[in-house]
């Protein structure tokens, strides 16, 4: 029983990181309809920017914020410079996915050129632990769960309570109609890519904080749980991705606790396959899935 509760605790912590990444992935997909596989490498970039800053004495949480902003800006540049021109030219979706896979590999090896192929670590985090309903979480894990919850709440309020958020949802829903309302959709799209990139970078640093060590494959490995979470929630749906992140996180940790830790990733792959077979529109169904970036 204790093992179960502890596994759920770990699952919530890793689920919070997955949710951060998956929500960013979903915002991006909801806005652009592009399956951006480069997202994983951008997450790795975030982790290495965090490492660069922490090595220079900056606190991990400040590093997380800075890495978020830098990866956000990189995401906007990536979309403006590469994806948007391809979409404008009417390039087929499959070809665009291949471009994002290729760009991800290039970025990953650019990181290797600068940081080397060896495993890296942010070093020892605070040893303080918190006991909650039988779960044992480190201070860093608790901070990440709280931070993820706060960011999700902030995103929710942005999307539902502000004109900017409604304009983002309107643009994701129907770009031509949004333009006919006077909405500068390119600018709105930039903001969405910035936000999703910020979540991606923050998730990269959060993942590195909770990992003993990491290397240039960090984001690529983590991409599948994130996509599984996004698919579970109905891809393009930030709220679904939040729930999906927690489900994938907890399911993976339970599998690791009760079978073999190596099966952690297998669970994510399994969820992805089963969901695509059984409920391709996600847990909440097709009606929900049409409401991109919904409220």
């Amino acid at each position, binding site marked *: 029983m204790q093992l179960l509760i502890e596994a759920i605790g770990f699952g919530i912590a890793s689920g919070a990181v997955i949710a951060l990444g998956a929500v960013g992935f979903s915002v991006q997909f909801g806005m652009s309809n592009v399956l951006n596989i480069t997202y994983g490498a951008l997450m790795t970039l975030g982790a290495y920017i965090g490492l660069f800053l922490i090595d220079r004495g900056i606190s991990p949480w400040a590093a997380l914020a800075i890495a978020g902003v830098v990866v956000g800006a990189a995401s906007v540049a990536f979309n403006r410079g590469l994806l948007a021109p391809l979409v404008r030219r009417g390039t087929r979706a499959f070809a665009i996915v291949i471009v994002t896979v290729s760009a991800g590999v290039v970025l990953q090896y650019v990181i290797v050129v600068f940081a080397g192929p060896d495993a890296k670590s942010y070093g020892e985090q605070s040893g303080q632990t918190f006991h909650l309903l039988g779960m044992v979480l480190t201070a860093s894990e608790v901070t990440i769960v709280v931070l993820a919850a706060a960011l999700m709440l902030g995103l929710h309020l942005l999307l539902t309570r502000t004109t900017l958020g409604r304009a983002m949802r309107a643009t994701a829903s129907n770009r031509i*109609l*949004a333009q*006919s*309302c*006077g909405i500068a959709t390119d600018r709105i799209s930039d903001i969405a890519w910035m936000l999703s990139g910020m979540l991606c970078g923050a998730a990269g640093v959060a993942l590195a904080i909770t990992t003993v060590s990491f290397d240039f494959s960090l984001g690529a490995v983590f991409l599948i749980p994130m996509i599984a979470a996004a698919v579970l929630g109905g891809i393009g749906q930030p709220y679904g991705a939040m729930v999906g992140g927690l489900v994938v996180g907890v399911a993976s940790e339970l599998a690791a606790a009760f079978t073999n830790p190596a099966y952690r990733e297998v669970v994510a792959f399994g969820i992805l396959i089963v969901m695509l077979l059984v409920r391709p529109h996600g847990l909440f169904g097709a009606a929900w899935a049409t409401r991109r970036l919904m*409220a």
Partner: protein
Amino acid sequence: MPTSSADQAPVATHARSALSIRGVTAGYGDAAIVHDVDVEVRHGQVVAVVGPNGAGKSTLLKAILGIARWMGGRVELNGKDVTGLPLQQLARLGIGYVPQIEDVFEALRVRENLDMGGYLFSHRERAVRMEKALDFFPQLRSKLNRFVETLSGGERKMTAIARVLMLDPAVLLLDEPTAGLSPELSRAVLEEQIKALGEHGKAVLLVEQKAVAALGIADWAYMMVQGRVVMSARGVDVLGNPEMREIFLGAKGPEDRTA
């Protein structure tokens, strides 16, 4: 073959020209669908563009808005050249558009759809405009918090038109606003709501497949066949023209005859 009864005074001749389209050629890819079309809409006028399927009516609207590929010609809004301006800038200049399909934000609630219609204005101004739009469509008052995907076809269309009214555009481009509606609802939308828009001083360019009903409310009308204007006259005159009857009864099915 083009015929015009320009010698018969169009309704509201004293009114200024709101939208003037001169020699427009447009299409998709390399294919021109619309050829050398001239259309004029004055303030307070409902102008209908009718014609059989494939006549290029919707392409004409999309060309004006920069959605279809522009190949030649000129568009003037209140005498000012607006040819090739981006859609969002045309909205800022006072052109509102209701597409034939995908005419609402599916992902948004009715209230949010209207709110986005007034995107260019302050919160306070939007609230005032929303009241006016809801006065026009009181049926929407009780549905403001519903997602539009849960609405009936008629309610969706009302939401689409109410959304564009939030912009308070001087010129309205409506692409088959009765598509998918029942005959009764189509008649109500055309005879009550769209006609009233003209009466409120709007310049309305209405593309409509249900030609008889559209011509019945149109101050002026253009008939297009195979991408060209073949007739322009007062709506009632086009309606009574034997050539129009021939084009429609020859090319179209019973639905249009009864529309």
